[in-house]
């Protein structure tokens, strides 16, 4: 054998030999065979084995590996779904959701050398404590640290820009959603509010939480093995679906009237245990407005809205403060209209009278005698202020709110029938309104536990306790022809695309009294406003019925504590709305519902009916006291102008000695009481000014005289015609300097109206 090539003269290889060597020179057949064998075996083995293996991995079993790979590569983040919106009946957005951003840090991914600057700079952008951030960042193993929850777009952009400009990694900006109540402190006790996780805690937000909650979406982001997001990789985005939206029966305008007038009364009469107002469509049971004042701003539900209470809570420290704060929060969140029981007092006389009329034990003109007192089983019952009413019909007894007559009517009715009607009016249990925290059962006497004394006190509205909502629902049945309606707040549920999911149909729970009884009761209600204890609910041009109530709080430590309430219905000849106002513990010149609550009811009724464009129909007395419109006198000769004013029932006063009227005051189109004075300026003289006098406590005639003497005009509101009516407020304050001829609006109330 040889290991070295010893042939110095290698076979010549070029030029390509003229006689080329055989193609396989030097190769043996055996060798060629072995090369072929090798080629075949190796090619088949390599291709066969590898292709089979790859087919198994990539075609047959691909999903197994792909899923496991995705699990390590993809980071899944939840995108919270916006809650459904809540709209008022008129389309006003009451609760909406806005997109916001939550900022989190992943300290593990943040660069060590940027930490200090990042803590300071990010805290400045987010308006947080730099030291707290520095502490969070110092935990270098942490994968998640919350920096700021629910910031707006500008702030989120500022954070993003900061990270980009400094190259800081490990800051996550996650899309989130936030509840927003655009109207602020408005309809709060109906709407409720949500917690940080977007779950409803009170009101409709709680009751309709499942409806309002949407379906959360998600983002899948590819990341590398170090946990950083891949910039170039696609993200898989599953969009969240907004929850269903609610459209309420609440009309934002009526709610506004109610809240405005109720808040004024709470302030004016120092109501210490909150006040309730409800406006109901008597024919459907739809709640048009509902308020408890003071309440809160659902955007900041934990802030005590009532300044006095807040100051009192803030004055405390430690556990005392915590307890007081919680109590104050629980109180302001409570929807008193639905959740709290109260003694309805004399308003309840409507129920007793309806029951007695309906089962025929009395007729509207059946007479009763009211003396100094009326004894039942040895207990003497008096009327308010120990008044002896004398001989009264049923109509008068209700209008004058005579306790003794009502006791006698109750006795005629008997406890069995009394209870039957009490239950039939829906006063024993929940109304079933779609708001949370309604008590399942009210406080009342069942016939087996009711003695003659209990029957007597129940007949005029003491001893039982019901919710304001139960009361107004029952009153609606009294006036609407006898149908007990199911009250409701949500008119319609729509999905994110705007399709109607469900619509609430008015529901009659039962016929409680006959139509005839209802008609008789309407008469009594109107009589109460025109002649009885409800005068202050009078609205010129609208026929209003109503009943006042002034109830003792039997379980209160304060013997003088009262609830002043009034229920009004209008138009009483064709009832549309009922308004119930309850002022719990007013501290004012009076505690009577007829004095304090009736004017609120009158204002809400007047605003609501004129908002609806219900035409006013005036009586002759009203027409006499009617106002007239000032004509346009500019350019006329002074004597012509005076003549035209006289034709309109007005007088004029010419200022200056020019030939034509240049300006006039009040201006054309203004409404004025007949006999008012219009000033006519014929030169460019300064308008004459006069000082506003005080009208407080004056009767209508006195007020007109006082204003005319000052060169001013009057516009009267309330029962100015009533003998006992006095001015209680005026639009321009005393001592103010105003142009001569200005109109002063004064509200009159009749506080001599009977107490109850």
């Amino acid at each position, binding site marked *: 054998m040889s290991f070295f090539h010893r042939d110095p003269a290698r076979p010549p290889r070029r030029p390509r030999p003229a006689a080329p060597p055989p193609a396989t*020179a030097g190769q043996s057949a055996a*060798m060629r065979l*072995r090369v*072929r064998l090798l080629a075949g075996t190796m090619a088949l083995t*390599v291709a066969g084995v590898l292709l089979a293996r*790859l087919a198994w991995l990539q075609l047959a079993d691909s999903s197994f590996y792909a899923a496991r*790979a995705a699990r390590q590569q993809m980071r899944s983040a939840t995108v919270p779904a916006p809650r459904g919106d809540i709209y008022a009946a008129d389309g006003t957005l009451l609760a909406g959701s806005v997109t916001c951003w939550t900022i989190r840090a992943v300290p593990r991914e943040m660069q060590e050398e940027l930490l200090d600057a990042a803590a300071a700079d990010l805290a400045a952008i987010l308006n947080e404590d730099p030291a707290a951030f520095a502490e969070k960042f110092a935990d270098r193993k942490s994968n998640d640290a919350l920096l700021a929850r629910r910031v707006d777009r500008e702030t989120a952009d500022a954070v993003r820009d900061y990270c980009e400009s400094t190259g800081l990694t490990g800051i996550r900006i996650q899309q989130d959603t936030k509840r927003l109540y655009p109207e602020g402190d408005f309809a709060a006790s109906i709407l409720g509010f949500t917690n940080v996780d977007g779950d409803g805690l009170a009101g409709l937000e709680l009751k309709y939480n499942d409806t309002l909650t949407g379906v959360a979406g998600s983002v899948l982001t590819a990341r590398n093995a170090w946990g950083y997001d891949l910039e170039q990789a696609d993200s898989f985005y599953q969009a969240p679906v907004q929850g269903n939206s609610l459209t309420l029966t609440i009309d934002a305008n009526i709610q506004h009237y109610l809240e405005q007038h109720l808040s004024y009364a709470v302030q004016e009469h120092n109501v210490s245990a909150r006040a309730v107002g409800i406006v109901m469509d008597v024919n459907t049971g739809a709640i048009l407005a509902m308020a408890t004042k003071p309440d809160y701003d659902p955007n900041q539900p934990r802030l005590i809205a009532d300044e006095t209470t807040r100051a009192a809570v803030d004055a405390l420290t430690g556990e005392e403060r915590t307890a007081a704060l919680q109590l104050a929060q629980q109180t302001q969140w409570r929807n008193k209209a639905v959740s709290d029981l109260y003694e309805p007092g004399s308003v309840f006389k409507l129920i007793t009278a309806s029951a007695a009329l309906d089962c025929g034990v009395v007729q509207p003109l059946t007479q009763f005698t009211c003396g100094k007192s009326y004894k039942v089983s040895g207990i003497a019952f008096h009327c308010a202020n120990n008044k002896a009413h004398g001989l009264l019909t049923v109509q008068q007894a209700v209008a004058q709110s005579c306790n003794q007559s009502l006791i006698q009517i109750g006795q005629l009715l008997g406890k069995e029938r009394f209870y039957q009607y009490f239950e039939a009016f829906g006063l024993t249990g929940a109304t079933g309104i779609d708001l949370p925290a309604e008590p399942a059962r009210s406080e009342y006497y069942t016939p087996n536990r009711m003695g003659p004394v209990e029957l007597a006190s129940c007949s005029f509205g003491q001893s039982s306790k019901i919710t304001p909502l139960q009361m107004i629902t029952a009153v609606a049945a009294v006036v609407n022809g006898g149908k007990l309606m199911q009250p409701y707040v949500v008119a319609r549920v729509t999905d994110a695309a705007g399709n109607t999911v469900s619509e609430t149909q008015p529901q009659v729970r039962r016929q409680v009294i006959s139509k005839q009884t209802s008609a008789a009761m309407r008469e009594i209600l109107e009589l109460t406003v025109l002649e009885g204890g409800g005068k202050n609910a009078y609205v010129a041009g609208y026929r209003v019925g109503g009943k006042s109530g002034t109830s003792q709080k039997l379980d209160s430590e304060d013997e003088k504590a009262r609830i002043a309430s009034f229920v009004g219905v209008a138009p009483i000849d064709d009832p549309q709305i009922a308004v119930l106002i309850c002022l719990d513990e007013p501290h004012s010149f009076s505690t009577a519902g007829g004095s304090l609550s009736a004017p609120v009811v009158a204002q809400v009724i007047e605003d609501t009916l004129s908002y609806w464009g219900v035409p006013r129909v005036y009586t002759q007395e009203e027409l006499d006291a009617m106002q007239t419109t000032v004509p346009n006198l500019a350019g006329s000769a002074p004597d012509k102008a005076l003549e035209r004013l006289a034709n309109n029932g007005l007088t004029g006063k010419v200022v200056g000695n020019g030939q034509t009227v240049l300006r006039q005051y009040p201006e054309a189109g203004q409404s004025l009481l007949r006999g008012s004075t219009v000033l006519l300026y014929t030169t460019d003289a300064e308008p004459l000014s006069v000082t506003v006098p005080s009208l407080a406590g004056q009767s209508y005639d006195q007020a007109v005289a006082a204003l005319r003497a000052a060169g001013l005009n009057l516009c009267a509101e309330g029962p100015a015609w009533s003998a006992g009516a006095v001015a209680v407020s005026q639009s321009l304050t005393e001592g103010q300097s105003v142009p001569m001829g200005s109109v002063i609006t004064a509200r009159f109330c009749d506080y001599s109206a009977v107490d109850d």
Partner: protein
Amino acid sequence: MRLRSVKERLFPAGLPGMDLPFFLLVLTLLCFGLVMLYSASCAVGEYRFQDPYTYIRPQLLFAVVGLAALYLASRLDYHILHAWAWPLFGLSLVLLVVVLFMPEYNGCRRWIVIPGLGTLQPSEIAKFSVIVLFSHIISLNHPRMKSFTVGVLPFAVILGSVAVLMLLEPHLSGTLLILAIGAVLMFVGGTGLRWFALAGGGALAALAGALILLPDLVPYAASRLSSWLDPFADPLGAGHQTIQSLYAIGSGGALGLGLGNSRQKHLYVPEPQNDFIFSILCEELGFVGAALVILLFVLLLTRGLVIALRAADKLGALLTVGFTVQVVLQAALNMAVVTNTIPNTGISLPFFSSGGTSLMMLLGEMGLVLSVARQGDQPGL
């Protein structure tokens, strides 16, 4: 005179053209490899060095130099390798000894670091020199290859000495590759088939012996073996590389995620630019892309062996068989490792894996195959 003779040797007049199919296959694999290397390595380059071109830049440079080497080698008369065979082998042995005194990297001593120039892998040179030496010896002694003293013993001694030195690094996969190539050359050269059967039995006995004599190897081998059979048993340890590679391959599915869209290359698959580049290829190009690569290597093998069959002499045939089989076998083993068809062992994918010097050598060897083709019978060209 001497200068003139070199020039004459390299650029003789009237030299026939290259084997175009083989050249085009090499060129296709090279370009494919460069594209895949950039795709697989850019993420790692960016993360580790803030430079996505970290790996592709030197590779491109070496590819250009390598193509020049290929061209020159294709014009070289391969018969001068008769003269280089023994000196080259001697040099290989020296380098294999020198490397044992180099600092450890990942528990192995496989690289000689030449300051300022880069690294040199003596096993690569040993592979080359064994092919050259075997081709040289067999072509001289072909008729007597059936006998033990001529057809087995010298080769066994040569392979044994190389294998022992490489196992000391340790470099098991390289050793096995050299043994396999040596065996293929002996098979083609005419060694009796019974010796292969005997060698197989001997290898098993040697393996058992090695495990007994070198107990240090036992846990190493055992861990390799168990992580092959059930990589999910230790997903964060021994099975980690394999699992990540399988995730990448499986994620690719039939058509892949698209070139550049691998997610596993983002630090999940270890060394995506090197031994595991094929798993990234499978993820991005899917089964279709992977099958194309396998097809290219099989075509390279068959064309290479066609050139061997047409070679002018035994030396040319054997050299061609040696180089072609070396490339394809290494590629097949790499793909088998990456797909967990065989136990995990460090072996790179020719034309694809990052590594400038080995790419350059590879292209040089392909040049020698083309040189054989130029002198052989070339029907139709």
